[in-house]
């Protein structure tokens, strides 16, 4: 039996953070029903798009037009049969649909609603908009990345989105644990901005020193690649400078010199030499290196299936369900509306013709 078998999740999320939460739950056996409106199933929500199939694996798919009163009523009927609803619309969208937590709770007291928004539902910025990179900028991440550069630099991935997903998973699982004890559902307000700030707490409570040890440097190597080196103490620094880089002199004067060193060794060789001495080092790997890494593949973390390269959850020891495909648009409509909601065939066809489903 899967860990989360018996848990049903309504998934009203899009982009990365929300779908990541529900994917994690689906990976551990929850029945996740992704609700899509046919007219907005575009971009990252296009079932034929490159992101959709990765972020929505192991889920079921149904269509509902929430712009119609009938569509909203059908969602409420689904709420009655579910444990958790996850959405990441702007804060006013669900209210504008009339799908408030209070209304949903009146249909199912045990329902947990996880609402993910850019800045939360309180505070002066509650209606501001933001994406992953907005949170990087506002939280101080971009500032910290840019230290030592003339112009601000950015990471090339949606870092904050994945973090929000991790926090969202913690919140959802904690609420499910509490519901098991009390039988009561609740509303969870998760702020993307705050998620990013939480992870920079070290820097907010006090300035972090960039001096002293460990000393971290990125060495340009003979083959044009870089090698990241972390020197824990003076002995490491001395070895690195004198033996590897061939630079002599007093240690005090060498500390700053380490920054600008260009190694005469290829990156992999430098990594090997330093590791032999117990110094932490790694040639900076490209995405190709990561995707083709034998160790990650041997451990079953990276797998090839259906023409894609998949990352499994790193929660080793907890049995994950087999990798299943992402749903096609409305693929499980019959299951959701006929089986779960007990709809008659005629009613189902009627809704379909009216564009509600």
């Amino acid at each position, binding site marked *: 039996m899967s860990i989360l078998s018996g848990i049903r999740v309504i998934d009203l999320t899009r982009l990365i953070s929300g779908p990541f939460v529900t994917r994690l739950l689906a990976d551990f056996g929850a029945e996740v029903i992704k609700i899509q409106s046919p007219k907005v199933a575009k971009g990252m929500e296009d079932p034929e798009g490159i992101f959709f199939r*990765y972020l929505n694996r192991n889920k079921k798919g149904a269509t509902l037009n929430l712009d119609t009163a009938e569509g909203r009523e059908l969602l409420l009927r689904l709420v009655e049969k579910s444990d958790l609803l996850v959405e990441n619309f702007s804060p006013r969208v669900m209210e504008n649909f009339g799908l408030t937590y209070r209304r949903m709770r009146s249909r199912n007291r045990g329902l947990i609603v996880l609402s993910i928004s850019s800045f939360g539902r309180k505070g002066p910025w509650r209606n501001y908009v933001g994406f992953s990179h907005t949170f990087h900028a506002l939280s*101080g991440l971009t500032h910290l990345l840019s230290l030592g550069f003339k*112009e601000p630099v950015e990471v090339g991935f*949606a870092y904050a989105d994945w973090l929000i997903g991790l*926090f969202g998973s913690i919140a959802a699982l904690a609420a499910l644990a*509490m519901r098991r004890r009390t039988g009561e559902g*609740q509303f969870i307000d998760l702020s993307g901005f705050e998620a990013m700030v939480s992870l*920079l707490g070290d820097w907010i409570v006090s300035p972090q020193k960039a001096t002293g040890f460990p000393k971290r440097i990125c060495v340009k190597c003979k083959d044009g690649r870089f090698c990241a080196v972390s020197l824990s103490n003076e002995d490491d620094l001395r070895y690195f400078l004198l033996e590897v880089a061939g630079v002599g002199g007093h240690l005090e004067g060498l500390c700053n010199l380490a920054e600008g060193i260009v190694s005469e060794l290829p990156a992999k060789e430098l990594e090997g030499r330093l590791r032999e001495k117990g110094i932490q080092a790694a040639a900076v790997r490209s*995405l190709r290196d990561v995707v083709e890494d034998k160790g990650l593949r041997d451990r079953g973390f990276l797998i090839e299936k259906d023409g894609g390269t998949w*990352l499994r959850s790193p929660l080793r020891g907890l049995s994950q369900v087999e990798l299943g495909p992402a749903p096609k648009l409305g693929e499980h409509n019959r299951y959701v509306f006929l089986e779960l909601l007990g709809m008659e065939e005629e009613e189902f066809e009627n809704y379909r013709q009216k564009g509600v489903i």
Partner: protein
Amino acid sequence: MRRSDPAWEKIPLRRVRHGSVVHKAWRGHAYLLWKGNEGARAKTRPFGRLTSKSSPSGEQKMLSFTVIDLADEEYAFATRALADLGAIVLRLERRGSHKITPTYIYRNLNKHIMAIDLEREEGLDVLFRLLKRADVLVDGIRRLAADLTKQRPTEVNPKLVHVSMRGVQGRKGEGEGWDDYVVSALSGQMVARGSRDDPPVPLPAGQNHYILSLYAAIAVLLALERREKEGKGIFVELDIEECAVTILEDALIRYVEENRAQTGHDQVSREDLFCTVACRDGYVQVPLLYSLETLLEWMAQDGIKVVDRAEGTRYDAVRRAVKEWAAIHSVGELFETGQAMRLPFAPIVNPLDLPRNLHLRRTGFLKRIKTEIGDLYAPSMPYRFSKCSRKLTFRRPGTSNEWICKGLLGLSEEEFRKLEEAKVF
């Protein structure tokens, strides 16, 4: 029936009224609340009873289990996340090994910290007794419980959930602890940068430790769900490199699906989405793809026009125009006006300025904590539960020793004093 009556603990009621709050019972039993002055109250209560569902104010707690935290300081955030949700977290520090810094406080808020000499037999005995009664053990990377106890913790307590945060597996140096800078290089994070022209950019120090910690908190919650179903403990091992790779999955997907097939590039860039430009008084991040037409209209009102609209070079031209345009504005103007038009503008902020951020203070996310080293503004967890408020408390290492020994383990006053005199604590 008085609250101190031991029979209270065993009443097999479905619902028990306590003050104005009604608590539903778990497994058909009602549990006493634990309230203040812990050392004085504690006698011989087993762990299950201590994991109260409510705070002294009557507010319910999200989690009701007990965690032994043996993780290195870098990974202490895993149990902080659980402590914030109401779990009783007992962090065991080696006696005299900890220094109270703002970072230490931040990662250890809401925990009970015991300073103990685990080199001594008496200290190890306390650890064993705690392990026997706890629900969860979290350790990593150097402070592995197995090294201390010389046996698997799940053998000591078969119902224990043991989550172990580990270094990079299968490589030289495993178990020595991996610097997150090096993990950043190994995982591909350094090359997945904003612009292809930039040199490798690592995430700020400590981020991979935090990512690993968040996964550990999830692992605990999932493992407890499994224990609930199967009735037995479990060992879960997390690899820092794998966790680090997961947070750039979007870059990997783009590489796998687009770059590898079409161009053979092994890097990705997000420079088509946003650009960061200098204003009169700082830098601001400008969204390019998001409502581009609105942005162009706004710029046109300021007399800035994008002249080159040829296919393929349009974004270069937009970027050049945005640079020219931003230079005549202040950061505040662009941020506030942009957001009023629902465009995700954002200033580049120094994290040290965040304690003054009005939004974060008004929402109660940043909380002021009084400590012996001064007042701190510390972030809470980023979620608000309708049934549980956010509270942050720092307890000095050692202040919970008596409560843990007498209250949780049931040691007598004499036994506790003996341990103290032997300098085990």
